[in-house]
């Protein structure tokens, strides 16, 4: 990423005015940054204190306008390593204050200039806490950010006309067009022997998942979301990974079918986030839309097998309910201590594990990275090359 010129924001007063309007008529007036114009999306909030660039580039946020609850955003600029995909994925960005100067030895450019380059519409200078409280009490809402000086009513109509997350298949939109082998260009993982062939379904996969798989010794083939089970298994993988991603898992019927077939094949299987939901549906479970979702880097998740609590990174609007556990083959392994929602499960007999949260973090605590090692152990056992 090259240093973007003109990192200092335009002086106050030069910014054009801008409004964020929700489908229920709530309106917030602020100032524009990034691209001028308008955008729609599901308005959600993220409570992480650091990691705005990882959030912006996480494909799971496709179709969403993301509000950061922390008021100062952009303080340390942007950096190539912090890209979780090739581009900004959100449809809009809401902050209290965008940094006019960034300070970090890592910085390769200012967030504001980068957002403009990425064509992201942003709004700043609003009471973000008021917006968050509205979303918390009223639930996630579709919204529109616009620099146009039209009436609010028109914007409310536009918000209502925008796509509803329920039933929306976004994975198909963000997945890779063609399969590819992941190579860690930054070499972050260091020299590792790639002992396992892993097929990773890309529903909107984050780069840090790929890096951590590679660092665990996986030779990763990333495949499009619509890849069938037989296509995947034809690659003779030691394990299959189901990635995170945006949208309603229920709409990904093709992926649910693939997941079921792969599980039945006995191939070790690991799902994260949307991948976890798809796996849950493949196991006969049900998913539902949370009122306003979990998005942040501070959610306590208890591992029921060890009793330990990990602080996790989260980003999901849908969740798996507990109906899947009526089938005794499946065991609840992780719960969210804030609201008791399902955070993970496993198959009692088959090598299948799945978590709702993000062990790859980015942004967020690294408490759960050991799950990648667990996946590796499942593959070792299956291959018979394990230590045990």
């Amino acid at each position, binding site marked *: 990423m090259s240093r973007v010129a003109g990192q200092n924001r335009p002086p106050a007063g030069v910014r054009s005015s801008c409004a964020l309007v929700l489908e229920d008529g709530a309106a917030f007036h602020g100032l524009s940054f990034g691209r001028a114009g308008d955008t729609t999306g599901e308005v959600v909030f993220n*409570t992480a204190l*650091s990691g705005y660039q990882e959030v912006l580039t996480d494909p799971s946020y496709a179709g969403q306008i993301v509000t950061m609850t922390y008021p100062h955003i952009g*303080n340390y600029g942007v950096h190539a390593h912090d890209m979780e995909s090739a581009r900004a994925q959100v449809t809009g960005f809401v902050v209290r204050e965008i940094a*006019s*100067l960034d300070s970090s030895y890592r910085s390769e450019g200012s967030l504001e200039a980068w957002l403009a380059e990425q064509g992201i519409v942003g709004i700043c200078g609003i*009471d973000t806490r008021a917006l968050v409280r509205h979303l918390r009490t009223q639930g996630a809402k579709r919204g529109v950010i616009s620099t146009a000086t039209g009436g609010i009513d028109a914007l409310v109509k536009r918000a209502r006309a925008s796509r509803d997350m329920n039933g929306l298949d976004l994975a198909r939109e963000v997945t890779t067009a063609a399969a590819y082998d992941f190579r860690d260009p930054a070499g972050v993982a260091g020299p590792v022997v790639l002992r396992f062939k892993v097929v990773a379904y890309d529903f909107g996969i984050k780069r840090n998942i790929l890096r951590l798989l590679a660092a665990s010794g996986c030779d990763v083939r990333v495949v499009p979301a619509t890849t069938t089970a037989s296509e995947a298994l034809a690659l003779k993988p030691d394990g299959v990974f189901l990635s995170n991603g945006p949208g309603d898992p229920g709409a990904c019927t093709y992926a649910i079918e693939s997941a079921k077939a792969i599980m039945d094949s006995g191939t070790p299987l690991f799902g994260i986030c949307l991948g976890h939901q798809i796996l849950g549906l493949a196991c006969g479970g049900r998913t539902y839309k949370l009122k306003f979702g979990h998005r942040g880097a501070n959610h306590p998740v208890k591992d029921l097998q060890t009793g330990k609590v990990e602080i996790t990174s989260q980003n999901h609007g849908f969740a798996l309910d507990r109906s899947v556990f009526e089938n005794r083959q499946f065991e609840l392994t992780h719960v969210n201590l804030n609201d008791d929602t399902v955070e993970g499960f496993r198959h009692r007999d088959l090598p299948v594990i799945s978590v709702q949260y993000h062990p790859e973090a980015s942004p967020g605590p690294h408490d759960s990275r050991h799950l990648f090692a667990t996946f590796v152990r499942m593959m070792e056992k299956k291959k018979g090359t394990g230590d045990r």
Partner: protein
Amino acid sequence: MKDPTIKSVLVIGSGPIVIGQACEFDYSGTQAIKALKREGLRVILVNSNPATIMTDPEYADATYVEPLTPEFVEKILEKERPDAVLPTVGGQTALNLAVALAKRGTLDRLGIRLIGASRRAVEVGEDRQLFKEAMHRIGLDVPRSAVVKSMEEARAAVKETRIPAIIRPSFTMGGSGGGIARTDAEFEDIVTRGLMMSPVHEVLIEESILGWKEYELEVMRDRADNFVVICSIENFDPMGVHTGDSITVAPAQTLSDPEYQRMRNAARDIIREVGVETGGSNIQFATDPKTGRLIVIEMNPRVSRSSALASKATGFPIAKIAALLAIGYTLDEIQNDITRVTPASFEPTIDYVVVKIPRFAFEKFPGASSTLGTQMKSVGEVMAIGGTFKEAFQKGLRGLEIGAKGFFLEGVSDSGLTGAALDAEMARPSPDRLFHIRSAFDQGRSLENIHAVTAIDPWFLDQLRQIVDGEKGIATGGLDAGPGAWRQAKQLGFSDARIGEIIGASEAEVRTRRQGQGVIPVYKRVDTCAAEFESHTPYLYSTYGSECEADPTTRRKVMILGSGPNRIGQGIEFDYCCCHASFAFQEEGCETLMVNCNPETVSTDYDTSDRLYFEPLTFEDVMNIVEREKPDGVVIQFGGQTPLKLALPLVRAGVPIWGTSPDMIDLAEDRKRFARLLDELKIAQPESGTASSIPEAREVARRIGYPVLVRPSYVLGGRAMAIVYSDDDLEMFAGEAVKASPDHPILVDRFLEDAFEVDVDALGDGARVIIGGILEHIEEAGIHSGDSAMVLPTYKVKPEHLETIRDYTRRLGLALDVRGLMNVQYAIKDDRVYVLEVNPRASRTTPFVSKATGIPLAKIAAKIAAGRTLEEQGLVKDLEVKRVFVKESVLPFVKFQGSDILLGPEMKSTGEVMGIARDVGVAFAKAQSGAGTSIPTSGSVFVSVHDNDKAGVLEMARSLHEFGFKILATRGTAAFLTKGGVPSRTVAKVGEAKPDCVDLIRGGQIQLVINTPLGQKSFADEGAIRKQATQQGVLVFTTLTGAAASVDAIRALRTDSFEVESLQEILSS
């Protein structure tokens, strides 16, 4: 789950308030005690500091106000036999004490466990070498360094680390004795001092990482190895300034997620390696701004000043949770009080910015360098919460009460310094640096230039620049600005008063225009979760946004104005009173609203009042809350001078004040009005006058006769107060007094030399006055009452004088229509009682008297303010005490090298301890021990008293002689003693011959000094003696009261007749 084998716990407090260890440990200790009690444990507390909430007898089951020494705590352990000792909520004092008890074998012998932190964890956390080794084991980087035990070793070590080098003595608090050596000479000096001050004669010589970025993480761990970060903190001041003296900001502002997570992972590895299994720790890091290299600076395996700040900054009660973890709970078993639905095993996230700014007291210590370094020098701090850094920062500055109404300080920001002179002030960390930076912006210096000079991170400097730029818009807009411009100015954190300064209008005009444009603040909640969950705790801060969450109730409510940042003269005692007021009003069925901006205190615990407004105590900030909440009453008599200053403006704004009327408070402060009242009551006071210029002051002084006491009115703690013996001195001191309080006249009083002084704390309800306690000063007249040792009940005051004092107090209380607390200071000279001053409000001794009598005076006072009579509260008689209670002050001179260590009418102490016993000698010895001074039981005593005291000192000298002391005396005294049959050796007075008494003290040949001065010469001599003695830790007594107490104390020490008794036992005896 809770460990069933722990049924009783001894909690160790932190002792007297000193620099580096203040009321944050009352806050944390109180939380811990409450939590442990709620768990059904028997809680035993030891703390020598009576001005704490935690030592209120209703908190612990057994409260020992005893010295924090291994000897006394051992006696308590033997008596109480608790299952465990919790040392992690009482600062370094408690940790050191716990280690000492472990080393003595006391804990093993009695089968008592250390919980919260193991002995090993404490030692690894504190011992530089062990810590360095531990960090290397887990692959973390620490500065290059060496631990040395001698000057020779130090010289060898510095060849590796190079100059500049950092020097840190082992096992000292707040970095006492440490420093940064930039030259070889400085290196020799600091190492010598550090070796001397370290109790183990050990210092660390360290690679300089000056100018690096500094961070802190507040972390917790439970026995199941669950780990959470409660708060990250970034220092505004780069490395080189003690974190207690730095402006700090939460959360960290300039760390990307990979950098932050690296730090978090390091913190987890550190707490594991050091072995803190249950509780909180503070871990400090530095990063190289050019490369990101991460270095571990230190870790404190306990709650700390920073953890108190982190608790207030996030709403997460670290000390309470730490106490629960120590008795076996895990984080997920504990609920978050604020959300009530989520567990404590999470990491708070915040949606605002918190700025802490230290408060200094260099004006109290002329001669001391105001350059900040690795040894902490600040005496207090403010915390401010804002929607942005700019808002929080400007709030913090106005909350400091140093005259700044925002990011501008008259006399500094407009000092006219330029070029190299300005560079020097910006490069030198000091309390004023910030305001010099302001001046640099005004002079058009670039951000890059300011960064190069100060090493302050550009992101922070950019924030400051936005504030300075904002002023231009304000100046242009003026009073006629539209709502958008007003809102923008307020969102940048500008106070009405500062806007007034910028545009040349009064604060009132600005306020009216702003409100006229509909621009008023909203209040947001501190909720640990950035609004993700509902908050059940009204812990509020103001900002300028679109939605207000204050949600006021319609209950009968009273607002309590707190005392702001701790400073010398206004500290924990007033916070104690504010807390009691809140408790009392709650008992009266009122909703209580606390307003304060001091993060160290119990009053700013969200648990203390029904609603907490974490706001500066300025007229604007207070009025905004008043207008939102519409309280039935506001009380101002508990928070010291800070709320009193607001009394008249609030009254003028129509705010109902409960308690003694502000007019009566003003009457007592206004010399002329007060003198008229005393005339009417026929009560004597030293002759006095007021002057508004130096010539006028001279005239008054000549009229009433020297020596005189000169001081400004409306200041607390005797700021700029002096005893003056001549016209020449008068000019100098009167000038100081004018500077300290320019809008008010100077007071000139006759100084009653050689008088007995007493302090009286009393309560009035309009119809009746009862006396809480009469305290006799042990120091000579002219020493500020806040610095004087005192004894309750009185010791040497004649009964008829006590009668007069009681009578005067009652009549004064009725005449001033006191509705609540009142403090009166008297002097007795030549058999006559004089009133020195009356303060119809909470005093510094209120908590002391409350502990001694078992009657919570502040609480009673609050109930009076709410309309209850004394009789309704069961109080019709003056209070009595069942033991002898001695108060001793603790002084910070050791932190202020180069300052004059003389005591005088200007208060200089930071804290106090209480000694309790059945007789004065033992109580006095305990108080001295608690204050960290030791009374000698053998050696030589130097006696020099004026003629009036010669008869009195004879018996004391005889006793000392019998105890085996050698008596050294000046000529006149020696002759008198010899005549009385006490052998003594004559030594020279100061400057009389060589060696004189000061030389002997310097030579270590004198262990105790009894010296009662009279007259200017004698006063000055005493200064020299005292200075030398204080430097060497030799006790000096300047009154016969003090000397007699010390002789009794020596007698007690020689027979070791010490017993420990809990307040509960004493009060029920």
